[in-house]
């Protein structure tokens, strides 16, 4: 019998090497998250998955599971924290859901609904982030970037292309493209790249298919992210290299 830890009063089994997040999702317990993706090494930057372990707060995606930990997640104190973090991400970038083609398929928006974020909370920063429409098949809308680094990781670890990187520090941190011109068209980025599939928000978009699936019939229109995420877990890569949890880019 494997060891277990307690999550909000339920016993959660885990395998050696799993983190609290991995074990929880595999056992059918949802912990809100944004930068975590089952196919990549946990990153721990968005902090949406913050839980209390034996009374101390920590990111559950990077916290190694141990026997008899007492983990609290779905409590008002932490959900209030998560609401503030979502508000911060909305205020940091330029997120206009009504005109965004990712609406309904966007994890940030879905988390906003699920956590019941009813107000903006912060004064928006309205950063100046130009679009990159240079690539024939792909549009980059940096306005919506939440700096989760999933595309950076996917392009480097899976695609072996290193198309993306992060530049700057602190609030000026931003996504860049690996070209002297800074343009996506000057890279070997392609529609079938893994990095194309992993963006949780609406930064990396295939061109000409924006609204082929009507709003109202999209991923998080049908079910809240808390239920959807569990359907997807444990998410494994299938033989074709596609991730079921990721959207089909075409």
């Amino acid at each position: 019998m494997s060891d277990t830890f307690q999550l909000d009063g339920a016993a959660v089994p885990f395998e050696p090497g799993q983190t609290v997040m991995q074990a929880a999702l595999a056992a059918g317990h949802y912990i809100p998250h944004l930068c975590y993706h089952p196919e990549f090494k946990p990153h721990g930057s968005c902090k949406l998955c913050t839980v209390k372990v034996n009374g101390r707060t920590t990111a559950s995606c990077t916290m190694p599971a141990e026997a008899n930990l007492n983990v609290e997640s779905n409590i008002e104190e932490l959900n209030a924290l998560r609401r503030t973090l979502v508000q911060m991400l909305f205020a940091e970038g330029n997120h206009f859901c009504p005109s965004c083609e990712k609406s309904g398929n966007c994890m940030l928006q879905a988390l906003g609904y699920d956590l019941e974020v009813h107000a903006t909370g912060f004064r928006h920063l309205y950063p100046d982030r130009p679009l990159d429409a240079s690539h024939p098949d792909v549009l980059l809308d940096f306005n919506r970037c939440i700096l989760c680094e999933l595309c950076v990781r996917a392009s480097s670890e899976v695609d072996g292309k290193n198309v993306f990187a992060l530049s700057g520090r602190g609030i000026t941190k931003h996504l860049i493209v690996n070209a002297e011109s800074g343009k996506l068209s000057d890279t070997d980025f392609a529609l079938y790249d893994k990095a194309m599939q992993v963006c949780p928000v609406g930064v990396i978009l295939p061109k000409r298919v924006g609204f082929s699936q009507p709003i109202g019939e999209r991923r998080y229109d049908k079910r809240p992210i808390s239920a959807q995420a569990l359907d997807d877990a444990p998410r494994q890569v299938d033989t074709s290299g596609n991730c079921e949890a990721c959207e089909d880019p075409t």
Partner: protein
Amino acid sequence: MLPDNDTRFDASGQAWLNQLASRHHNDASLLLQMLREMQERFGHIPQEAVSRLAGKLAIPRARIESVASFYSFLHLKPQGEYRILFSDNITDRMLGNQALLEQMCQLLWLQPGKVSEDGLVSIGTTSCTGMCDQGPALLVNGRAITRLTHQRVQEIAQLVRNRTPMADWPADFFHVDDNIRRRGLLLDNKLAPGDVLRAALALGSDAIIEEIKTSGLRGRGGAGFPTGQKWEGCRKAPGNERYVVCNADEGEPGTFKDRVLLAQQADLVFEGMTLCALSVGARKGFLYLRGEYRYLLEPLQAVLQRRQDSKLLGTDILGHKGFDFNIDIHLGAGAYICGEESALIESLEGKRGVPRNRPPFPVTHGYLQQPTAVDNVETFCQAALALHMGADKYRTIGTERSSGSKLISVSGDCAYPGIYEYPFGVPIREILQDCGAVNTRAVQVSGPSGVCVPESEFGRKLGFEDLPTAGAFMVFDDSRDLFEVARNFVHFFAHESCGFCTPCRVGTSMLKQTMDKIADGHGTQYDLNEIENLDRVLQTSSHCGLGRTACNPVLHTLKHFRPAYENKLKSLMFSPAFDLDGSLARARQMTGRDDAGAHLKEDV
């Protein structure tokens, strides 16, 4: 301003770059050191040079941009030939740095943060440069100039206008005083190079660690981890290589004791590192020196060379077969976060200085994922002293849980700023008397991330029992507005946040906005509540200590000096941060109008 496709990178530049890369064995883990040299050579890091270097090192060019853009002293766009950065710690402000900055801008005809039209000069601000005892200070092309006055600013402007090479500037400008005011066992030591190592070799590795453990020595960088335990952990951790790292990234505003130790006691620092290497079994060590102390590089290298020559470094140290140890100096490039040990290791590996997820800790997975002992400059000195004088004797100095002495960097409102060495357990009041401080309202202990202590608590003592400190001791008298002190610190944290995690990246900016809103007279009770909310988020969910302590200055000053905030508030529950009349300023400037009709009346 020079065009983006800059012209300074010509054939000779290319040859120099090729030589730079081969001198560093095309090793990408030395990327930051190469970028720093490129910055010194070209005044910025040219786009073309980035591409060329990427080819040499076989890494994506975006990675080079990513690293370069992380550090304040590296520039990917052309800057002025003379890059002037005013140190902007609160102590510099109290000494009038803002008026001096304005004067410099007027004399050179430009705005702060801009490069002059002819590409001659750029002027800006930077975080504390560690010259608080002789401020206001600035950096010109990375070289520190202290004791600024209006006279000195005029002279500098003249030298810049005349394009005088910096080698020909008056040497007096660059003079840095040590200002040692009170000596103890460290600053008074009579040890000769090699004394400690000879004693250590007689003991053997296990006994050294036992001795350090028994001495009760704890880290002097602020956190106070038991040094012997750290060394033992490093020695026992599995690994192919072991490393010793000296953290000389003294970035906490108000701290400058490591600067003085490196200038006065470099042998003792290196002796302590070598002692650590002997006990943990390391053959390689690094001293990570903050970029602001660039001027110490050559003198430190000379000390290393002298120690090599006298067999105190290198192979078979002091004739002891198999005792090999070498030390390299790496320079930082303007990033406070690199004082955090795992961020420092990332930076040593040539990456962005982003703190790692922990566990694992550096003691088992440090530099290149190998066991690494990272200690502060002062800790290595104290370890050497403790070993030489014997653990039992060392333990008698200081207090029960804080043995030994501590160097305190005193600055702010006092007659004698400088370095004071005390046994642990010294009360704040005693330090204030010694440094000639009068009418003191508060003391900031251990810098912005530390504690603001009001007059009613001046009986408190420095030490791990009560007030742990990395050494900063900034004094504020009753003429100072503690709200402005906190606001300066909040700006500091926002500037230095690495941007990795959401709460710190966004939260420190929001905190800054809110403090600025209060300073501008638009603050309300709502904003004070907002500050408390932000404090909670930063403390509970930040990735590292920077975010978790970023709200300390506000929390502490709100607790002890709430009226300093409240007397700036409007009585309303809410006031928008958007300033309607302020937004017309540009229109007024363009039309040359400033009459009553060009202003909106504020309805309060």
